[in-house]
């Protein structure tokens, strides 16, 4: 790929990603009163993250088994702790150890 087409692609990708974030943010000046829209906006981030996680996360590691165990560990830890770092590190370690054990069997 030559530099010209790289920069054109970059412009389309970065430009569209920026505008889709910035335009609604910059233009919504009023507080929304409508209960349905307010409720929708409250639920949307959690719905997005849930749909992004399942089932894609199961295929993120070397095997479905290690990913499932890692996700299970993340869910367990996040019941007890609100620390994103702790949950993330626990999940990574669990996946790593599970894959080590699996390679031995």
């Amino acid at each position, binding site marked *: *790929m030559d530099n010209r*087409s*790289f920069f*054109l*692609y*970059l412009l*389309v*990708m*970065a430009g*569209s*990603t*920026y505008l*889709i*974030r*910035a335009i*609604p*943010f*910059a233009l*919504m*000046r009023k*507080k*929304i009163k409508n*209960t349905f*829209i*307010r*409720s*929708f*906006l*409250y*639920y*949307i*981030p*959690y*719905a*997005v993250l*849930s*749909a992004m*996680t*399942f*089932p*894609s*996360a199961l295929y*993120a*590691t070397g095997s479905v088994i290690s990913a499932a165990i890692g996700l299970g560990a*993340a*869910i367990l*830890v*996040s*019941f007890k702790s609100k*620390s*994103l*770092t702790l*949950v*993330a*590190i626990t999940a990574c*370690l669990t*996946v*790593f150890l599970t*894959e080590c054990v699996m*390679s031995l069997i």
Partner: protein
Amino acid sequence: MSILQSYKKGVKAGVPIGLGYLSVSFSFGIMAVSMGLHVWQAILISMTTLTSAGQLSGIGTMMIPGQYASMLVSQLTINVRYSFMSISLSQKADDALRGVWRWLLGFFITDEIFAVASTEKSVSRSYFLGLAAMPYVGWTLGTTLGALLGNVLPESLTGALCIAIYAMFVAIVVPPAKEDRRLLAVVGTAIAASLAFYYLPYLNRVSSGLSVSICAVAAAALGAWLFPRKEEDDG
């Protein structure tokens, strides 16, 4: 709270996101270089685009010449969720966060930065800028490291790092969902819909970016219709 205090508060809240991004963008760096991009191109993409799913799909498209329209359509469908987040965040922005500040800081609205900012009652310029700092550094640094030394690390280690972003999603969703059955129902609906789009015939032909948007919008709309929230619910 002074400007410096709220900036520091934001930076502190952004550290775990930055760590998560470090590992996720590390795998992006590996993939970008393995697909044939230069190290500087991978870094430039991360610094200007700052998104996971969109970049991953984008580098795939870049490998085929002349697919600019296809690039635009796939980016818009994958990223349409940001519009909802931007509108949601605009409701929490304080009086000083407006005008040119919105055009500047809007760049940094990612899933995780948004999710953490949403837990605040009101979002100021300094807090949001602080919150974005570590994730931006982590995303750039991780891409750089992955692009430079991805092929040196064993596969078991890079695989383990790839779960980090999802663990972070779990950590954002679980604590409020276990306190609130209505939210739990919305989360369950989104997951069920997402599983259907992944495994059922015909539905699984829909691109992953678009299916996430469809599932999330449907689940949140159903939740808003069945379980409307009062002002005091949302803090």
